[in-house]
């Protein structure tokens, strides 16, 4: 088996008394689009900056392409592209100059594709960077990253500040490199982005990975939302195992169901002469909230979250689409 593209084990990093990373483990295989989600301050950027050799780990190991992230940083970086979470540009340089500079520091840019990207992102490269909005600064970093040829793309909250149309362009870029077999590591606190793009993901919270897996694997951790209608009363659901947050009205019931108890509950519903069942898989929003919704339980057992999460989850994770 070839080296994992990113292999991080037991990574720890403290800033003074703030323990930013407290034992992060992560493996990204070649060709994956890997999501890395967590709330602000969870340690996403810190993990990435250690993996890039910008920060030095206190403990643990970070390797990219099988090489040591700290020692072999320059060699590794010839083969990767990075979009930082905070794009700060030089006010007296134009966007085009910064793109060229960043590309030249890697020495393998594609001028043709650069032009195409600038067009698709509707970006004006001849303005000084101090006049760019947050979204435009982000475009500088994105164009620079995607117009160089790389085996791995590390993107730290790359769509912040982009408007929805530009997000589509961004997604196209990611899918294009993915189709070429490149690896993409995408950090985000916006779930639908990860949901739309990623094969596998890790969830980080307070410097620890609290869950890892494919979207499908992770869905077993939570419960489907079930809506059932039947001519006979459904109040008996209350006594069944695996049923939560039950609401019974005449002729219908809504509840959340542990997947393991599906057979039992469906048997009961059939016996009541059920006429309609709608079962909705949890969105990533709900999955996310089952980790973070209840702070006390989240780190230990994700399934222990019992609060009436969905509504809160939807509210809390409404996407902030455009800012600036």
């Amino acid at each position, binding site marked *: 088996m070839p080296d994992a593209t990113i292999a991080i084990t037991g990574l720890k990093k403290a800033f003074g008394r703030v323990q930013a990373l407290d034992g992060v483990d992560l493996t990204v295989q070649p060709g994956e689009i890997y999501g890395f989600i967590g709330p602000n301050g969870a340690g996403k950027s810190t993990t990435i900056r250690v993996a890039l050799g910008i920060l030095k780990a206190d403990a643990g190991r970070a390797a990219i392409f099988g090489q040591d992230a700290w020692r072999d*940083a320059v060699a590794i*970086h010839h083969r990767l592209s990075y979009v930082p979470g905070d794009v700060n540009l030089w006010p007296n*340089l134009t966007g085009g100059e910064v793109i060229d500079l960043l590309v030249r520091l890697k020495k393998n840019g594609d001028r043709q594709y650069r032009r195409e990207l600038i067009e698709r992102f509707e970006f004006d490269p001849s303005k000084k960077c*101090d006049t760019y909005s947050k979204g435009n600064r982000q475009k500088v970093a994105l164009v620079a990253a995607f117009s160089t040829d790389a085996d791995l793309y590390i993107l730290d909250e790359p769509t912040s500040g982009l408007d929805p149309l530009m997000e589509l362009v961004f997604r196209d870029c990611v899918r294009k490199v993915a189709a070429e077999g490149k690896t993409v590591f995408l950090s985000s606190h916006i779930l639908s982005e990860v949901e739309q793009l990623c094969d596998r993901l890790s969830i980080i919270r307070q410097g620890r990975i609290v869950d890892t897996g494919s979207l499908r694997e992770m869905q077993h951790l939570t419960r489907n939302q079930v809506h059932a209608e039947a001519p006979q009363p459904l109040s008996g659901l209350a006594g069944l195992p695996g049923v939560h947050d039950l609401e019974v009205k005449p002729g219908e019931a809504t509840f959340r169901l542990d997947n393991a108890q599906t057979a039992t509950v469906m048997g009961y519903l059939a016996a009541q002469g059920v006429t309609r069942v709608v079962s909705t898989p949890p969105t990533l929003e709900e999955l996310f909230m089952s980790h973070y919704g209840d702070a006390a339980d989240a780190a230990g057992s994700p399934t222990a979250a019992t609060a009436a999460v969905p509504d809160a989850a939807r509210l809390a994770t409404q996407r902030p689409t455009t800012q600036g």
Partner: protein
Amino acid sequence: MDTTNWTKLLRLALRRDRVYLTCWIVGLVALGTLFVPIFPQVAGSEAEMATLGEMMNNPAMVAMCGLRYGGDYTMAIMYTQMMLVWMALAFAAMSILLVARHTRGDEEAGRLEVLRSLPVGRSANLLAVAVLAVIANAIPAALIGLIMPVFQVDTIDLPGSLVSGAALGACGLVFAAFTLIVAQVMPSSRGTTGVAMAAMGVAYLVRAYGDVSAPNVALATPFGLIEKTEPFYTNAYWPVWVSLGAAVILGAVGLWLNRARDLGLGLLPQRPGRAHAPRLLGGELGLGWRLIRGTLIAWAATVFVVAAAYGSVMGDMAGFIESSEVYQQLMQVTPGQADLVSPIVATLQLIMAIIGAVPVILAVNRLAGEEKKGRLDQVYGTAASRRRLFLGHALLAGLAAVVMQLLAGLGFGLIARSAMKTNPVDLGLVLRVAANYWPALLAFGGLALCLVGWAKRAAAVTWAYLVAAFLLAYLGGMLDLPRWAGRLTPFGLLQRYPVEAFSLWPWLGLVVAAVALAWAGLVGYRRRDIT
């Protein structure tokens, strides 16, 4: 013109800027008054004053400082000649920065947009800024006028001080009002500050030219105009009124232009820059050069102009030194010494070398500054190496040291040669003196590099050390300090060539020390976090 609620905006601005403005005001007042008690120590007797008056009438000094006016050269007139224009520059800079900050600066930060959504008049902010500028200029102007006479220095009286202060405040207001217009026209906040500052520099240079050879030209600049107040001589107020009138007209034009302008945009469209980077901007060294290019060019020009000014006084200097005991001490000349030129060259080149160390340190510290502003993340995310970026900055700093010393030697030597009618100084000698001090600049660069590697927050240490070196070099002779005290800085470790014989060992030793410090810095830089 709708200025609804402008008083509330003014109050907000005053509140926001209470620290910023206080610092400026205290700084301006200190700069404008604290040298008053020191001046009498430079020259005492009337004969000395007369000689000084001769020397200060030299074209280079007039160009650099200002007009020498009046009959007898009094302490007050000397003070005004040396300080008025420079203080006016400081007032102008304060006004420009203040106005730019509260107009386009606030617009770019999005703060004005929030305010505009409230019941606030379209011109309210501009009016508030104008009044803020009046306050910011009037307070230090009045304080300077009132404090200068307090030191009871001979000939520095209240009426002259008041007109000095008024002239400074009026000059500041002209630039504040001018910046109000620039802020309407320029496409960005940086452009606003840049153009207004450039105009200030041009006004200074035009005045310099005019004062030397075309008085009417000088009068057309704010600086030349206020020189005509002739404090402590005619105490004329008409230049103050003319300045204030000009400020009112410029301010009115600014308010008028503001009515039709879109928030965040200037009347001039943004001029497109390069869509592609020039060939030079690539790689670690190219990036480093681009980052410090502007700083180095500005300092190179400064060093050359100051060196030329020093050079131009060489002709009168020897005679003057013979008659001034204080200057003999300052320049560390032994009375009766046959060769009066060598010690002057050594001392003036030492001062030049200390000035030249500033851009060297700035070039190094830029590396830490970039890191602090979070701009190195994306650079180190590429294949840029820490070693190459660090060494690139070190190389540029070393080259800057060479260029600064070369310009200090050339500027001084060339001008001095033409100013000295008898026994002109040898250019080769001056260049050798400059070369003698070069390792000291390297040592300061090395210290700064070491701190970037190991203690990036301690950059102030290098500056404090340089200031100490300056004080030791400049005042060491006057204070009769022991020899070892002078040896505490790189400059003191070197021989006082050409007064003392050149010695290779301290020279080489400093070069080696600088390289060792830089190397130590690199070791630290490669093993620490970039945050």
